[in-house]
């Protein structure tokens, strides 16, 4: 259960939430721009349907409004950690394929990667505020226990990249909504509820 909610903790959470909302909003705008550039430069079809790519966290969620604050934060954190790894891999592949030929896309990818890392850290801060244990990255990898992904063809890499950026754009919107939920004052106390209770 989260520590009883002192006013200072509530204020701190609200501050972290509103900063997180701005960060996620900016990240989303940059991801959407990156997505447009990526589609164009990789010669992809913007309206192409991309099946769910293994290892890419799906933003889609059912009964979103019933999630507790802790669920929201833990799911967000797991997602952005996964995106951090996926974007790093994309960046690596990008350099291998194009070298410096396409530095612009590489820079944009690196900028988004930086924002994703910053946002993941921000989520950890929120969890720490609730003296909530932060799942270690190793724990997650063990939980996944997934073998390293098979080597993809160039086209498969491009499609996966499209899937990654699309999901990340959706996650950024979801994160804004999640953080708004967390920042909402609870009807009773007027302060933001402890994470475990907040719908």
């Amino acid at each position: 259960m989260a520590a009883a909610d002192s006013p200072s903790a509530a204020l701190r959470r609200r501050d972290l939430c509103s900063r997180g909302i701005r960060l996620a909003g900016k990240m989303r705008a940059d991801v959407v721009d990156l997505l447009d550039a990526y589609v164009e430069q990789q010669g992809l079809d913007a309206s192409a349907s991309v099946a769910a790519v293994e290892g890419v966290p799906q933003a889609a969620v059912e009964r979103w409004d019933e999630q507790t604050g802790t669920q929201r934060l833990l799911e967000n954190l797991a997602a952005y950690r996964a995106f951090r790894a996926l974007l790093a891999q994309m960046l690596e592949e990008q350099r291998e394929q194009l070298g410096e030929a396409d530095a612009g896309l590489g820079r944009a990818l690196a900028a988004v990667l930086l924002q994703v890392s910053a946002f993941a850290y921000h989520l950890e801060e929120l969890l720490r505020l609730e003296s909530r244990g932060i799942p270690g990255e190793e724990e997650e990898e063990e939980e996944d226990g997934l073998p390293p992904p098979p080597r993809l063809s160039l086209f498969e890499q491009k499609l996966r990249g499209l899937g990654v950026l699309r999901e990340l754009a959706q996650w950024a919107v979801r994160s804004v909504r999640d953080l708004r939920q967390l920042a909402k004052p609870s009807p009773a106390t007027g302060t933001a509820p402890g994470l475990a209770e907040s719908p």
Partner: protein
Amino acid sequence: DSHIQYERVGADVTMKCGSMDWDAAVTWTANGTDIDESHLNGSYLILKNVDLSQSGQYSCYEGSSWHLKYQTSLRVGTPPKEPVLMCRSNNYPKGFYCSWHLPTPTYIPNSFNISVIHGTKDMVCEKDAVPKNRCHIRYLQLFSTVKYKVTLTVTNPLGKNFTTLTFDEFAIVKPDPPESVVAKPVPNNPRRLEVSWQNPSSWPDPDSFPLKFFLRYRPLILDQWQHVELSDGTSHTITDAYAGKEYIIQVAAKDNDIGTWSDWSVAVHATPWTEEPKHLTTEAQITETTSASTSSFMAPPTTKICDKGAVVGS
């Protein structure tokens, strides 16, 4: 036997008199009126290049016994054209609705069937009692990258057609216009107008899904709108209004993060505050007022002392 017969506009129609032979003596009526023999070929009724006005009740009687041998209700119409389909979420994140209409009438009854697929999942589109050409779908999932595919099929006895829409969850989010827009002058402020409004009542959770607003205003004497975007709150004070000019004001809304702008709200009118004109009453008061005001009147800086009309303050 009696039944309904559907025929396309422009078709040639032949009606037999039930089981009567071709050469039997018969009488045909249309809505109770005898049909001229020129339309008969033996006992068959021939209608060339039918039009809408020829819809009606056609009856065939045996010779002179007036025994009804055949009756049909002829309905002249057209097969359906590709229906116009529109889907929109004005109550995000609850769900979205789809509504449709035919670009041209068919003059005969049509039936509509809609299918909504999200990825591989079939979704239920709950039909509204009114309006009939509309149904609602509840979002089972939010923040999905999987597209929705909506197919509307329209069928009538003369043909069939369909339309398909494919869209993302976010793309169809469009709130209803803001409501209860009010504009008021601000006392003692000849250049201000206070505008307030409310979130559209159809928007279910403005706290979690806040709306931002777009305000446009102009004096009636001008065509050019002025715009201001407001990311929170449901009121704004216009501070650059032309004094004494009547203004027209409208507001639009959009989800803070996704979708498109609503239509403009209903227009409201307001005129900034103006000073009450001083009333001239009896002669004495006028004289008194004039002498009082002359002593305080200062010639405007732009007026030259030697100007003919200049009034010099004492």
